[in-house]
């Protein structure tokens, strides 16, 4: 599948599905070191996007879909992940504005803008035990894949794999941002729920590009 508006719609549908599937896991991760609402909040946010996707015109661009998802998440999630993912998708939307079919470089620009939006909003750095620890390896892997001449779908797959590794690598960290930062060393051994959800969302993006997205 080309990375067009239909891909963006498939990505968002896939995100809603993967978040719903892992809702309890995300709640559990968040309950361990946070306030326990991450899975529920994301499920509510992505569920609210679904009916709006059906109303999109056939010529909607990826940017249009990302912007719709961004504003919906910002107004429905209710926790930190709403402004964070909302800002990420809004910045991503701006980065690919007007493009009907994203090439590998556009995918890198999209992911980079999303990560930068999260950093701007949350002021977290790599190693703070946040979703940035999944996003930054994803951006780096996507850049490397694009530079190596990989297809847009392969670039997304590389990003999703790296995000998964980044999320796993949050386990030994002490949190320096968010609720988990109140726990000090007690956060060690727990995976950051935001990094975990990031890897699910990027898996959904890659699956949609590979034609495996939820229909």
């Amino acid at each position, binding site marked *: 599948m080309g990375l067009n508006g239909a891909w963006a719609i498939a990505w968002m549908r896939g995100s809603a599905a993967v978040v719903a599937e892992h809702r309890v896991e995300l709640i559990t991760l968040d309950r361990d070191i946070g*306030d326990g*609402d991450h899975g529920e*909040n994301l499920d509510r946010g992505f569920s609210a996007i679904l009916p709006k996707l059906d109303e999109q015109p056939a010529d909607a661009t990826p940017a249009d879909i990302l912007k719709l998802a961004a504003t919906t998440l*910002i*107004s*429905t*999630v*209710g*926790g*930190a992940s*709403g*402004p*964070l993912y*909302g*800002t990420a998708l809004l910045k991503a939307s701006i980065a690919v504005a007007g493009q009907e079919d994203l090439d590998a470089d556009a995918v890198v620009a999209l992911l980079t803008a999303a990560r930068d939006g999260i950093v701007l*909003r*949350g002021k977290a750095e790599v190693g703070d035990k946040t979703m940035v620890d999944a996003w930054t390896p994803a951006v780096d892997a996507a850049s490397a894949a694009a530079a190596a001449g990989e297809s847009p779908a392969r670039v997304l797959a590389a990003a999703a794999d790296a995000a998964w590794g980044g999320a796993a690598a949050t386990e030994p960290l002490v949190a320096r*941002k*968010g*609720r988990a930062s109140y726990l000090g060393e007690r956060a060690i051994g727990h995976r950051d729920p935001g990094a975990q959800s990031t890897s699910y969302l990027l898996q959904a993006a890659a699956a949609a590009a590979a034609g495996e997205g939820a229909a």
Partner: protein
Amino acid sequence: MSGGAVGLVFVSHSALIAEGLIALARQMAPDAALAAAGGTDEGGIGTSFELVSAGIAAVDSGAGVVVLCDLGSAILTAETALDFLDDDVRGRVRIVDAPLVEGGVAAAVAAQTGASLDEVVDAARSAAGGDPAQHGADEATRAGGSDDPTASHAAASVTLRNKDGLHARPAAEFVKLASTFAAKVVVNGKDAKSLLGIMSLGLVKGAVVELQADGPDAEDAIGALASLIESGFGEV
């Protein structure tokens, strides 16, 4: 509502906290433009982009809006709401990093006195200062201010008569009156225009209040403030 006053938005994960803070602040700032943005749209625990945006719009008279937040994601939600404002509105909205309750009360009192946006921001921030509380009652045995004959300085010592001393409501009344003078007024070493500074003195009935003022209207300021204290704030 007085036209052109700075408005305040209290952003909390809990609707009860935001609304409770308004009730608390109203004791001292009955006319200030205050909006509660607590909880999610469905009334759960969390923060709502819509409620924050609506709160800013509700209290924005053009003089500016100060937004105070509780935990992390409240700040993220408020910052995101600011991103969606028109440029001219965003220019007069400030998110202030200050303790929600203490900062909110101090900012509300400042807004009530007609303070500028910068002054309300400063009042909220004053709550974050680690200024150790002074217990004036312990050191108030020293009586008798030294009257300076020059026009720019005035001083007086007055004994608190009302039952609860300079607690919240009288302290707010005192700060409001002090703020109407140009002179710099100091109460037992604390800025008389800082509500939290005055309250941190913990002055109780029988404590001696030492007033010092410097400025063009120093005499008037001391006279008025001493009279207010002697009046017992309507509580005797």
